[in-house]
């Protein structure tokens, strides 16, 4: 290693390059004394640079012979810190390194740029190049130190990029296919056979394609079986993303008017406890009445769009086991006060994990108030098999052009995600604009009643 020298008396640990162009460090505290036995990667000294205080692990094991600097001394990079005696470690050990790279120099020989490459699976690119899992553990560990696994040592061979894409589009794991071509090449016929098998009922493969071979992982990774509610959620989201070509449109809106309306209602009828969610529900229902194309679902098998007469309003709620989407049935028949009561009741049932299946099915449109998470916008996944979802971001004070001046207003972002098969942007935009107009001037709702 470049930061060490080996002499007959021992090995001297030089102050390593701590990165960022720093040239020196002050010794703050020694954690070992002459005569102590140290092992590789034991923290031996704390130093302070112009940037940070850093604990330095020692790259050698053996008895400490000399501490070269007293606390308070300023040491230049490359100058001796301490000398470790005797026990000469073998070259092989030195090469293998400890993998401890916390302070940017570590004991590993490999130099990496440190830049992370983004890829769809979120795995380091090297792993993809190897086609297996080998380097997936940590970006800093040299690939050679990754444990040997039972996974294939080379990437699955595919006859062409087109067929590789075919597999990916159908969520077929190439690693699981048995190649029928010469040289173990996966052919189009292999992928097509897998697609047919998947359609014939291998539902588990559909939902959780093993894109990361199991061997890629560490033994101490946290594994949670995908079952129960999580599986239901995963299935539904996956199916939505696979089947529904969704599009999203959004608009910023001045919600000051809606907030004022809420306060006014509260002033005259506090008992009804009509909150923002109920008002958004009311507005959504009026919008769906005006744009019924969005209250629909696509039946792929029958190749038809079904426009639904009843408006069953789904809304996202949290249960102890995760996201649930209770449904207010026949929401169009309710008064705003009744809506508020229904939403409240279902929210409480969700919180107590007491929703019945009937209360969670049959939705035709979803209202998603992700603003409760303090976020402004989202590109949500449609609640399959519905055709649209209204998203409401947080409402906060923002400068806003109001009556010719910049004023602080209650501003929120509204988003509409819709199944592009049921309608085009004109309808979706019309609906979203209607909702936005009602939020800005709730009195407009009177005209739609």
């Amino acid at each position, binding site marked *: 290693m470049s930061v060490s020298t080996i002499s007959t008396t021992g090995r001297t640990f030089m102050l390593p390059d701590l990165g960022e162009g720093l040239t020196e460090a002050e010794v703050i505290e020694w954690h070992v004394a002459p005569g102590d036995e140290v092992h590789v990667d034991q923290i031996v000294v704390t130093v302070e640079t112009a940037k940070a205080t850093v604990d330095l692990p020692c790259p050698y094991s053996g008895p400490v012979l000399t501490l070269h600097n007293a606390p308070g001394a300023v040491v230049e990079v490359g100058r001796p810190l301490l000398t470790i005696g005797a026990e000469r470690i073998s070259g092989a050990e030195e090469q293998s390194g400890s993998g401890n790279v916390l302070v940017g120099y570590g004991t590993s020989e490999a130099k990496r740029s440190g830049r992370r490459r983004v890829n769809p699976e979120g795995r380091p690119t090297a792993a993809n190049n190897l086609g297996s899992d080998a380097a997936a553990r940590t970006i800093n560990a040299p690939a050679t130190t990754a444990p040997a696994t039972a996974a294939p040592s080379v990437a699955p*061979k595919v*006859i*062409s*990029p*087109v*067929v590789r*894409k075919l597999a990916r589009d159908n969520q077929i794991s190439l690693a699981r296919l048995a190649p*029928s*071509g*010469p*040289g*173990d*090449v996966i*052919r*189009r*016929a292999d992928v097509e056979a897998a697609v047919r098998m998947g359609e014939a009922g291998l539902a588990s493969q559909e939902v959780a394609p093993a894109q990361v071979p199991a061997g890629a992982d560490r033994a101490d990774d946290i594994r949670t079986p995908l079952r129960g509610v999580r599986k239901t959620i995963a299935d539904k989201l996956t199916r939505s993303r696979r089947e529904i070509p969704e599009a999203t449109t959004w608009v910023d809106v001045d919600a000051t008017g809606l907030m004022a309306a809420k306060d006014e209602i509260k002033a005259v009828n506090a008992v009804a406890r009509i909150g923002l969610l109920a008002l958004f529900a009311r507005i959504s229902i009026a919008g769906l009445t005006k744009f019924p194309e969005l209250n629909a679902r696509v039946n792929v098998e029958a190749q038809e769009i079904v426009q639904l007469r009843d408006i069953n309003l789904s809304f996202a709620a949290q249960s102890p086991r995760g996201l649930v989407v209770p449904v207010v049935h026949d929401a169009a028949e309710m008064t705003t006060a009744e809506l508020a009561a229904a939403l409240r009741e279902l929210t409480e049932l969700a919180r107590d994990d007491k929703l019945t299946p009937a209360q969670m099915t049959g939705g035709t449109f979803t209202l998603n108030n992700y603003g409760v998470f303090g976020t402004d916008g989202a590109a949500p996944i449609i609640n399959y098999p519905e055709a649209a979802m209204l998203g409401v971001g947080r409402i906060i004070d923002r400068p806003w052009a109001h009556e010719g001046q910049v004023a602080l207003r209650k501003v929120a972002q509204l988003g509409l995600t819709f199944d592009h098969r049921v309608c085009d942007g004109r309808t979706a935009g019309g609906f979203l604009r209607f909702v936005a107009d009602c939020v800005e001037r709730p009195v407009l709702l009177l005209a739609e009643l």
Partner: protein
Amino acid sequence: MTLTAAAHAAGAPASARQQVTMSGAINRALRDAMTADADVVVFGEDVGTLGGVFRVTDGIARDFGQDRCFDTPLAEAGIVGFAVGMAMAGFRPVIEMQFDAFAFPAFEQIASHVAKMRNRTAGRVNLPIVIRIPFGGGIGGVEHHCDSSEAYYAHTPGLKVVTPATVEDAYTLLREAINDPDPVIFMEPKRLYWSKGSIESAVAATTFESFGHAAVRREGTDVTLVAYGPSVDVAMQAASAAIESGWSVEVVDLRTIVPFDDETVVNSVRKTGRCVVVQEAQGFAGVGAEIAARVQERAFHSLHAPVLRVAGLDIPYPPPKLEHLHLPGVERVLDAIARLQWDDNADTRFLANASKGGAA
């Protein structure tokens, strides 16, 4: 594409027009450029009194005078260096390297001065020089006289590299090259000098299409052949022969290697899903390699098979009796097309452990 491929157009309408050879088209382009611009001068070895070893400058010295078209000593570095000086003084020299390999003594002038002057002077001095280089084999010539040297120039930033495959393009591209404010390496396929076509519409045109536009010479749906210069003709013949095997072949003629028309090439491959690059030059590190790389980079997910190259062998140019083995011909192009995994079986040529299964 406004320029039609006259050389490959259907026989009847083309034959109705006056036919000229490619060398005649180049001669006409030189004359028209010299007439249009008194600063255009032509010089090189034997281009004056003799009219060029391929008759390309036939009669020009006689008709335009010794000041506009003249012979030089046999010193190619001097020819190019002289052109640099003349261009700096305001002329537009069109110079000839008598044969491809004869340009190599001038390579230092070309690569270090012609190509770099604009950059070196921060744009203050541009060099409107055209260096005409008869190139390629297929004429029974010997070494020094049959090289395909386009890759050297294409690899040098600052040079445009142009090569016509049709008689009409020979006229049009040379006019455009002479008009260009920067140096252009104009590579003339020797074996096409006596090919015939019409240049009437090109001569009548008042403007010329800018560089960087490839031409689809033949439309097809199954595989794209990318070629330039002398190889376009080979690709066209292969495309015709491929019909027997049921392949619909599209042929793209680059026309200008630099600037490179990615759009036309990639659009074609995205359409067909398969691509073979044909070049006469030796394959290793050639222009075809660059094309293959660009295609796979840009059209990767459209590819049903690897992008293959058909090129000259990686050998010094062979003696005349052997050149037919060296030059990529129709059969080798068809062999490459056949390897494009039509039957869902992998091409096994570079496949490790390929004994399993039945594909050839």
